């Protein structure tokens, strides 16, 4: 908490949780969900958490419990298989986790399908439509149904790591450090001019790692507030950041 950068901390709540992260890792590394290389996935999972900690994102307890669970499964996998009496068959220590992942994925898909329905007030409208009559004051929530937000972390981590190598001499210029609040304002200004940019281009002017982090956290906050939107036409294409039309507060 005494970390001088703690003021940059943003909640990790815009991400969908540890199971979502595990599914992302499974998809990204193209591993078989029924035969998860648990040691490898655990290592990658922990690398993610460490990276998020490095860039001052608060790691919720739920992510830590998942890390502990993965560690436990890993240790069970290493134990010699002893068939106990009365036990019909050796149970795979991963079975419970796989069941949870599959069940969670089922609902994640269902949520995406719901988002595709013809939604009243978005796709279809009744006669004499008054949006406030219907839903009361609109609650602004972020919308990342089709986008895997962990891809944003992946891309940022690549930028961060490449910059780390090329910028070995980091000069501290206290007068030039800026806060998330300031950076958010700048980003909105830039986006008003450009409307749409590649995610990686937002980091062009950030010469120092601390600035990279501030930009990243600012983007996350603006996404959370619904001022910016993410868009990726397909899995392999670069991520685009778009300014939402109606948020000229």
């Amino acid at each position, binding site marked *: 908490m005494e970390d001088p950068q703690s003021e940059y901390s943003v909640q990790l*709540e*815009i991400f*969908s*949780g*540890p*199971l979502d992260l595990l599914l992302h890792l499974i998809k990204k590394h193209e591993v078989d969900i*029924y*035969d998860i290389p648990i040691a490898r996935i655990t290592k990658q999972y922990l690398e993610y958490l460490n990276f998020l900690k490095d860039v001052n994102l608060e790691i*919720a307890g*739920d992510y830590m419990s*998942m890390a502990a669970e993965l560690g436990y499964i890993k240790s069970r996998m290493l134990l010699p298989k002893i068939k106990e009496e009365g036990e019909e068959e050796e149970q795979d220590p991963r*079975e419970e986790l*796989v*069941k*949870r992942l*599959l*069940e*969670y994925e*089922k*609902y*994640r*898909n*269902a*949520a*995406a*399908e*719901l*988002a595709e*329905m*013809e*939604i*009243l*007030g*978005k*796709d*279809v*409208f*009744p*006669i004499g*439509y008054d*949006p*406030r009559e219907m*839903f*009361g004051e*609109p*609650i*602004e*929530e*972020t*919308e*990342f*149904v089709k986008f895997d*937000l962990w891809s944003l972390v992946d891309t940022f981590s690549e930028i961060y790591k490449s910059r780390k190598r090329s910028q070995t001499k980091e000069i501290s210029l206290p007068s030039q450090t800026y806060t998330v609040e300031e950076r958010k304002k700048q980003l909105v200004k830039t986006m008003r001019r450009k409307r749409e940019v590649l995610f990686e281009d937002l980091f062009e002017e950030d010469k120092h790692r601390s600035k990279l982090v501030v930009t990243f956290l600012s983007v996350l906050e603006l996404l959370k507030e*619904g001022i910016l939107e993410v868009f990726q036409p397909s899995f392999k294409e670069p991520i685009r950041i778009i300014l939402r039309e*109606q948020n000229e507060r």
Partner: protein
Amino acid sequence: MSDRNPIAKIIECLIFVSETPLTIGEICNFLKDIEKKEITEAVGELERHWEEMGRSFTLSSVAGGYQFRTRPEYSQYIVEFNKEIKKFRLSKASLEVLAIVAYEQPITKTEVEKIRGVDCSSSVSVLLEKKFIEIAGRKEVPGRPFLYKTTSLFLETFGLKNIKDLPTVKEIEKIKEDFREQ
């Protein structure tokens, strides 16, 4: 043809003036002298007829009732025209919670959290506030936690006829079998 069916025309104008989707039951209550079978047929005729006419709005069956709604291909013009319309938005987390409640109702917050592996308090409050879910009683377990279910506003908003109209998801039982086979 509905054009020759005076009952269909009367039902049509009732649906038109009704503020919320009009149910067959409500129509029957109103047109007391006419049999339910005849009313159901007339509504079916109307639905087909409106679909064929291909206007910018049509008769939709939602939340157990009928309502005139614009076709989705015109949404961009409507949103553009009515600047006050804030696009409907729910976060991925809230949509996931909504999906779980929809498929598993009635269900407690703790049970939803077990499925998602993460705290869901803020999504549950958002969904309660938006009136997409509501309290369905308490579960008779220690602590007597609230049970949640979806509302008819949820059906109305997502254009679902009834809760059985939800998009089908991969059956969990099937998945378990697959796992055993491995």
